């Protein structure tokens, strides 16, 4: 899906836990998620900390949208 969104000319970043799959299916902008059943959360930490974690992930993803890339890139 993310690849096809990007194909229409809209930068799209994928947050997913299994980076090799994202690379295989051809996502151009990738951010590693926390885990498969909770990509943007961590049930093991306190609520406030979890939101901070989520914000950090989104900041990385947003940074990924602003970078000019020439090939598939995993943002950290």
């Amino acid at each position, binding site marked *: 899906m993310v690849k096809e969104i990007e194909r229409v000319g809209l930068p799209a970043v994928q947050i997913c836990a299994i980076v090799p799959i994202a690379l295989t299916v051809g996502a151009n902008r990738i951010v590693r998620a926390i885990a498969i059943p909770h990509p943007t959360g961590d049930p093991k930490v306190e609520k406030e900390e979890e*939101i901070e974690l989520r914000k950090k992930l989104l900041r990385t993803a947003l940074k990924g*949208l602003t*970078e000019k890339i020439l090939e598939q890139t995993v943002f950290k």
Partner: protein
Amino acid sequence: MKPVKVVHYLNQFFGQIGGEEKAGIHPQLKTGPIGVGQLIKKESSDRFEVLQTIICGDNYAAEHLDEVSSLVSKWVEEIQPDVFLAGPAFAAGRYGMACSVMCKTVQQKLGIPSLTAMHSSNPGVDAARKEIYIIETGDSTLDMKRVIPKMVGLAQKILDKVPIGMPQEEGYFPRGLRINVRAEKRGSKRAVEMLLKKLRGEPFETELPLPQFDKVVPAPPVTNLAEAVIALVTEGGIVPKGNPDRIEAHNASKYCKYFIGNKNDLTGEEYQTAHGGYDPVYANDDPDRVLPLDAARLLEKEGVFAKLYDYYYMTVGNVTAVASAARYGREIGELLLREGVQGVILTST
């Protein structure tokens, strides 16, 4: 050995009626083998006996596939052969399509084993490769002499109920079937041997061919994030509680769009996951763990980006066909682009 009764399907050209000018002829039934049918008889050492040959023009068949295939299966039902053969069609598209559809129909309707042969570029291959055996041929009749024995051999195996070998051994197109086999060497040994061959630059055959995916040139980046509209999309199945649009838990047949313009947070009271491929406990407890709305709102307030798009798009990415996912992505992308969105954050589980 018991003789094998065959009905054989041919187009107007191989049926020796004529060329393109005869491509409009209606299906007709002729007694005995014609052309390729003689070869089938010969290659089977006279065991295969073509009782009747059905001939139909390429155009007529391709334009009336339903009509022709039901007539053909009616005829075949009356004749009651042991096997139904069609072609080979090589790279001829209309002919290949007809061969595949005739075989598929006869086999499914009557339970009579049916097979055909054609080139990999023939659209007939994808029309029926999962249902019937289609022997792979070269792209011209030059390959006839090699292909007929293959067709005859495979048909004989099916009739004699002999186990059918792998696609590359028997020369048919992979049908996408998985069967358990006992290998001589264990998996780790085979894997290391394959790896060594790969390192030495020698040819090797993978046991798990990966589907081929194409690459997309990266889209231009968001130039000014502080002024950008950002949208959230997820394949993780987050839906309003109760799944009002009844999206499927696997192989989703659609994508959905939900308004979040008045929400700062997704709660388990109002949202849930409809995804059938992961443990739903964490997402149902706090759906922001899959669709990060709360954090996105905070960043929006901080001015990191201008605005979060008022809706989110979602589907269930769980054994969803690549072709469907590609279509959903394309349509969502076009819709978002039209709505003035400049960047997309997509989460998957």
